[in-house]
């Protein structure tokens, strides 16, 4: 059930250059189920900025009624968000969308989790859930440069973790797809979140095995009502059939929609 709640900031940490980790608390956490869902945040009371900002759920702590997000402070909204201090409120709408399905994977099977930049955060909760089930996880996470690498250590605790940077200042130089190819990584299912070119490359290379991709699109409502975030289906790429990233996604099976 989608709720709207003024949640309380428990903690806010700068974990890399312009990258913040924000933990909030409230009843809304009770509604959270799948990893890969997102919330829609209003960062001020007034109309500057006017719209909500979609941010993925990175970790869920049901016991404490807390969840964590990781985001890049860039534009007006996320910059204001990064100024929030413990005790401040954030207006959260969520949980929204459909996350990564984990049912088909059995204990002993291998999942490849691929993240690019600010697409890495939702993989953390996903990885935890998979590990709980006994699934073996491998992480490949890519960043622009050393300054903006994050979540490496958290993911390492859960499974083998490879880091790439575009400029080679940390980990392997290149893109995540380069690394997967070079290391000839083996896996049963892929889960990925990151920039569209990365998702496209993954789909081209590895979608003979099950692959779930989390998409990004500019949003209005975030709940499926405004048609801001639609994409064509691959079955009917020039026609009128569509999926909404916010409510049908953000996670889709590779091959489902045109990315």
């Amino acid at each position, binding site marked *: 059930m989608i709720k709207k709640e003024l949640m309380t900031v428990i903690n806010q940490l700068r974990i890399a250059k312009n990258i913040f980790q924000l933990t909030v608390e409230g009843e809304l956490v009770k509604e959270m189920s799948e990893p890969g869902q997102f919330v829609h945040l209003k960062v001020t009371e007034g109309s500057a900025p006017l719209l909500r900002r979609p941010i993925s759920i990175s970790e869920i702590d049901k016991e404490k009624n807390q969840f964590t997000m990781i985001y890049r402070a860039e534009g007006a909204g996320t910059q204001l968000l990064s100024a929030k201090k413990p005790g401040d409120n954030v207006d959260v709408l969520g949980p929204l969308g459909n996350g990564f399905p984990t049912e088909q994977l059995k204990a002993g099977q291998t999942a490849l989790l691929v993240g690019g930049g600010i697409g890495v955060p939702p993989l953390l909760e996903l990885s935890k859930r998979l590990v709980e089930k006994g699934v073996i996880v491998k992480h490949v996470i890519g960043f622009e440069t050393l300054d903006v690498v994050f979540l490496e250590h958290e993911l390492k605790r859960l499974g083998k973790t490879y880091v790439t940077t575009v400029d080679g200042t940390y980990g392997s130089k290149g893109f995540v797809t380069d690394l997967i190819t070079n290391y000839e990584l083996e896996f049963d299912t892929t889960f990925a979140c990151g920039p569209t070119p990365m998702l496209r490359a993954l789909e081209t290379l590895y979608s003979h095995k099950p692959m779930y991709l989390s998409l990004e699109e500019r949003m209005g409502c975030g709940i*499926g*009502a405004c048609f801001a975030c639609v994409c064509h289906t691959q079955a009917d790429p020039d026609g009128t059939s569509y999926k909404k990233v916010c409510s049908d996604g953000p996670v889709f099976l590779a091959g489902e929609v045109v990315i």
Partner: protein
Amino acid sequence: MLNVQLPGLSLKNPIMPASGCFGFGKEYANIYDVSQLGAIMIKATTSEPRFGNATPRVAETEAGMLNAIGLQNPGLEKVIENELTWLEQFDVPIIANVAGSQIEDYVEVTKEISKSPNVHAIELNISCPNVKTGGIAFGTVPEIAAQLTRAVKNVSEVPVYVKLSPNVTNIVEIAKAIEQAGADGLTMINTLLGMRLNLKTGKPILSNKTGGLSGPAIKPVAIRMIYEVSQSVNIPIIGMGGIQTVDDVIEFMYAGASAVAVGTANFVNPFICPELIDALPERLKELGFDHVSEIVGRSWKYDRKTAHYCP
């Protein structure tokens, strides 16, 4: 103290979601009881299904947003079969927003959609600036707007409201032509044509380049136009453009609107419509009114508060 009577519409209260900002109601019905609403203005329906424009389709601006959805909708047939039928479970009148590229399109859609039992009024979207072919002209040339109104009135089973575009030199002239052509009411305003550029690429953020500006930024323009038009026509107006608070609702009704629609604010707060409905009676009382009808056109109708009356 909130009920409002308009041609074809017996509203529990004067608050309804604006077309395109509420889909066909499903998403909101999941989070609250939409029977509370005065009415629902559904997303524009065209004769054939439309996918709409490429994304990005929305961009934020100061106190507003641009959209260029491009009239995405499943087409007349599916709207009637799936959406309107599904909406029958709720005790709420539907205002069907109708769009098209030529007069025949509007006529065709209106003829069929107005037969749906829960469609109590038609809203002619003659102002949507997002579709490259047609659309824009209907709302900017008085004679064409009148011609379209007449054609649609001829086939509609329910009252017809015409939605005015604010992107015109003389809104009163167009409103009068539409009234003369037999419209039962007006809804106003649709979005202002705007644009935003990406700092890095230099290109428009919207793939459609231009889009419609909505939200609080346009409220003063809406108020001005409703103030002008409501004094020049004798048909009722449903007002919209930037409504966010109960004070905004009252300001629109003071200006001359008999009811209001809430668009962009649904995205900021999906519970906005029921919240406004809840808050309105107390705020009216605070300001000294017993019924919402007392405030309609107050900016120009009365020098002082009118005597109380209960309908």
